[in-house]
């Protein structure tokens, strides 16, 4: 459960989950919504996948991610969104690139 809380504690990762709620997306499509480097996005995906919140599948040249939330995790995500962890407006784009260490240990 620690990994789930860690994964949900970051706004970028929560925004990734919000995007995947609409439909499964490739890594490239997801990365277009953020102004962070590809390695940083990969690190975010790794954290989400390790927590079991998303699943991935290689389809041709790209990796497609899909939401894989249990009912409890879905409720936690909604709770997080509803109680102050809300994303800053509709632009969840960090102003500058963050080092990998900072992303993994916010």
């Amino acid at each position, binding site marked *: 459960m620690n990994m789930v809380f860690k994964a949900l504690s970051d706004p970028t990762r929560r925004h990734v989950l919000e995007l995947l709620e609409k439909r499964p997306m490739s890594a490239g499509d997801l990365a277009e919504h953020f102004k962070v480097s590809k390695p940083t996005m990969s690190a975010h995906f790794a954290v989400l996948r390790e927590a079991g919140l998303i699943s*991935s599948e290689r389809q041709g040249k790209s990796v497609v991610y899909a939401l894989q*939330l249990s*009912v*409890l995790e879905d409720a936690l995500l909604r709770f997080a969104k509803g109680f102050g962890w809300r994303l800053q407006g509709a632009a969840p784009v960090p102003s500058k690139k963050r080092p990998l260490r900072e992303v993994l240990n916010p």
Partner: protein
Amino acid sequence: MNSVTPRYSHPVKMAVSGMLAITAVMVAVAIATKLNAIDAATTKRALGLAVAAMVALIGNLLPKLRPLSSSGADPTKTIAAELLTGRILVTAGIADAGLFLFAPLHVARFGAGLIGVGAILIILTSVASLAWRAMSGEKSAAAPGVGISASNRKVVVYLLFAFAYAFASACVAFLVDEGARRDALANWMTIGYTVLFAVLFAMLNRKRPAR
């Protein structure tokens, strides 16, 4: 399509071990009753709670197990249907647990039976509408969904089949108090499930002709 996830994924292992643990509790309660260690009313409450725990556990993990991922329907809609089914089962499980903990036994059994039948009907309607859309060839704008590996899929299908049998049988047992009628219904259900299992087994193990 190559799955990146391991052979037996974490949610599948959790669901199987949870089901086995709850079944072990049920067997232990049945043995204790045979040995006159606990009275009939406590047995009924304990079994009701075990069924409620099973319903909540499977409901919680259902969206992770992705049982509809290979249905051919729009992946966005299958994910939504799985989440809805999971929420219904978790709510039913919690409500059943509350009834068996706090309500008089006859009210708890009748209420749990009604909740169970209601949940089954809503889930069947949701899955049937999804299947109808998939069969009518509704096109999806979404990317292809992420499925589960073949070995995981087999385990998930058998697990959910066993769960459906246990849940439906429990609902009948809760609703029908009269022994002879309940036994007759149970016999018919067993026959029906055996036939369904044979069909399912044949479908899952059929060999596709080499191209």
